[in-house]
């Protein structure tokens, strides 16, 4: 089989001359940009070339104190007192300003995080704006969301978000919290702080009352200060299951509420009667979207035996046409791995997969010299007990198994501590309903994968989390029903 690409593509880089980036970003507290109390900064780099983009103030305990105090004051003095209709208008403003500056945000997202510009342009940024727009309208309509109950805000919410969809996760967290009348201290991930700081500029431009949204930066230590702060009413977290469990233990007995969107190891199931070519596209999207840095990625593939040979051959052929490289190039399918740490983790798992007896297939693409990269990888000859089947890798690595019967594949799919998402490919409607009903996971894609919308709840069963984000279920995590 030839491994040469069918087409040669000329470079089509998105220009960066229209974006505005400062060399240094401070914390956003009480409506102002202020340096950290102890004056520390950390670098944020472009993972595709390892160059420093900017430095960002690192929050210590004193900064968290300030941010929470400012959020509390804004909650008591303005935000909870404001007419919900007016609250909604501020959120609409944020949505509009984000749409206006979508191009700039897309480029910065791609530079800071390594994801292909096609994805930040077509998915992350428009969806982030849509989240603000959708939730804005809820602000003065909450009595229709919760029949028989009155929805009251919780107070000050601490939000901690991951690096895989930095701006989008900020929008998922901020929009419902604001619409329901809470004030916020948000901590973006330490490798991807920039779009959140740009969002802070928009929040300032939108003239949101000072202190309603505060943004602090830093790594795990900063997050701990926020989680353990005594004047926080709720923690909303997206990230690993280990950290989620740490948060549950930390807030135990404190009366703090929490919603957790944690890890996943989704089963993507291909039945013999599936439209095979579409399914192959679906497998590609399920595992290689955003370099596989997706908690709901379809990282366990189950193919019915009769079509296993065909599916795997077609999948390998399709993988060869994936373009891995410069994230700013509009033709790029797979960008850079977000950080060195994540790259090392992926490499460890791939080594483990081989040691456990898996057969590895990697595409022949050449990778840039600088930056963090990993080639699209699939494993066959793996079994349920293998660690690459049980544990979340969070990279472009797919593990493939086969099955014979529907009952067998449902058992295998559910044999996981996780339960975030799943995929089913078949032409038979009744089978879709049977399988989607029996898979213990919060989001199921039938004949599609990795689709998101602000009106559509997203959240996990079992060790994939507590609570949902998006839709009415998402709102319910930010209110007390009395």
């Amino acid at each position, binding site marked *: 089989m030839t491994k040469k690409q069918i087409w040669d593509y000329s470079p089509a880089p998105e220009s960066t001359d229209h974006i505005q980036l400062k060399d240094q970003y401070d914390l956003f507290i009480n409506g102002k940009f202020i340096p950290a109390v102890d004056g520390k900064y950390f670098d944020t780099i472009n993972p595709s070339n390892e160059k420093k983009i900017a430095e960002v103030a690192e929050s210590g305990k004193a900064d968290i104190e300030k941010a929470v105090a400012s959020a509390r004051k804004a909650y008591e003095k303005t935000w909870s007192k404001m007419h919900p209709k007016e609250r909604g208008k501020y959120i609409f403003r944020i949505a509009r300003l984000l749409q206006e500056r979508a191009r700039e945000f897309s480029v910065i997202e791609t530079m800071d995080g390594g994801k292909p510009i096609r994805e930040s342009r077509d998915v992350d940024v428009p969806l982030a704006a849509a989240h603000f727009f959708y939730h804005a309208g809820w602000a003065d309509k909450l009595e229709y969301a919760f029949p*028989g109950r009155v929805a009251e805000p919780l107070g000050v919410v601490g939000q901690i978000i991951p690096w895989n969809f930095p701006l989008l996760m900020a929008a998922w967290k901020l929009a419902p919290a604001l619409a329901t009348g809470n004030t916020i201290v948000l901590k973006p991930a330490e490798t991807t702080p920039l779009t959140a700081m740009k969002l802070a500029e928009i929040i300032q431009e939108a003239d949101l009352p000072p202190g309603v949204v505060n943004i602090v930066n830093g790594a795990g230590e900063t997050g701990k200060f926020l989680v353990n702060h005594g004047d926080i009413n709720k923690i909303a977290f997206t990230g690993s299951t280990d950290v989620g469990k740490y948060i*549950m*233990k930390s807030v*135990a*007995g404190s009366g703090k509420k929490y919603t957790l969107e944690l890890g996943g190891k989704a089963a993507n199931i291909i039945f013999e009667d599936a439209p095979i070519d579409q399914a192959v596209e679906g497998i590609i999207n399920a595992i290689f979207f955003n370099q596989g840095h997706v908690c709901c990625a379809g990282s366990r593939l189950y193919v019915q035996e009769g079509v296993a040979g065909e599916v795997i051959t077609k999948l390998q052929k399709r993988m060869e046409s994936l373009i891995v490289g410069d994230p700013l190039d509009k033709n790029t399918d797979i960008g850079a791995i977000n950080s060195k740490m994540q790259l090392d983790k992926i490499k460890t798992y791939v080594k483990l997969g081989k040691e456990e007896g898996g057969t590895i297939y990697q595409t022949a693409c050449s990778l840039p010299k600088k930056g963090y990269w990993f080639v699209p990888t699939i494993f066959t000859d793996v079994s349920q007990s293998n660690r690459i089947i049980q544990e979340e890798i969070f990279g472009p690595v797919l593990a493939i198994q086969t099955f014979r019967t529907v009952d067998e594949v449902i058992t295998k799919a559910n044999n996981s501590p996780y339960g975030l998402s799943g995929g089913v490919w078949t032409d038979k409607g009744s089978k879709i309903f049977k399988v989607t009903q029996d898979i213990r996971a*919060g989001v*199921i894609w039938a004949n599609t994968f990795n689709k998101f919308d602000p009106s559509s709840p997203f959240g996990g069963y079992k*060790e994939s989390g507590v609570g949902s984000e998006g*839709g009415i279920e998402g709102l319910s995590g930010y209110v007390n*029903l009395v």
Partner: protein
Amino acid sequence: MSQRIDIQKTYKLFIGGKFPRTESGRYIKWTDKNETTVVNICRGSRKDFRNAMVSARSASGGWSSRTAYNRAQILYRVGEMLEGRREQFMAELTLQGLTNKQAKNEINQSIDRFIYYAGWADKFQQVFSRVNPVSLPYFNFTLPEATGVVAAIAPDDTSLLGLVSIIAPVIAGGNSIVILASESLPLSSISFAEVLHTSDVPGGVINILTGYRSELIEHFSSHMDVNAIIYCGHNTDDQKLVEINAALNVKHVIQFPIQDWSNDKHQSPYHILKCQETKTTWHPIGF
């Protein structure tokens, strides 16, 4: 003429639709206020709890996949059976310290609570499900779905109503449950199990243990196959313990520090939702 000797009841556990004694062979001596009646209550063990969990898990799939109409009828049937056993519960509740009037009220409310949730069993999904207007050519809908197996520490200050108020919404939502009955007022819980036994609730859907809270709470909250833990009480150490242990496998935690279960505000479809997951399904629209 010789006087007839009463037949006394042996209070056992209720696991998997059967009435076993505790495997531990231990007992707790329970006496009424005047110490005229003495009953040996099973002192349930960790092993009893684990056996009950196995029953609850194996019953869970079948129960959640029954039609909502069928579940509703079975809950209604529990109400019917309770109604028919008033005398037995009157005797037990008064023995446990209630006046006749209080006992009557507790029975009435317990029956009504089951009927209330029987009515919800085939409606809450309708009220709390949605078709979401996504901005893509997809049909997208969201439904509540049973979380699975619920472990519960029942309220201590009521013998029947508290137990019923916890069990009814959990099973109306398609879950199975293992519940630890009131430690100080345990009698009605096992008689309630007799009601369940005659009311078409499949074995294993509801499992009732008696024993010491302080001994069992650790096991209820740390068991790795429990999906949600309900704690009824005011002890802050217990509340914290439950929340810490819940982190082991990310259980849902439901705290009910409720004083007075007789208030109707403590019955609500939102109680059903506390033990539900949210499932969203996407499918393309096209040719």
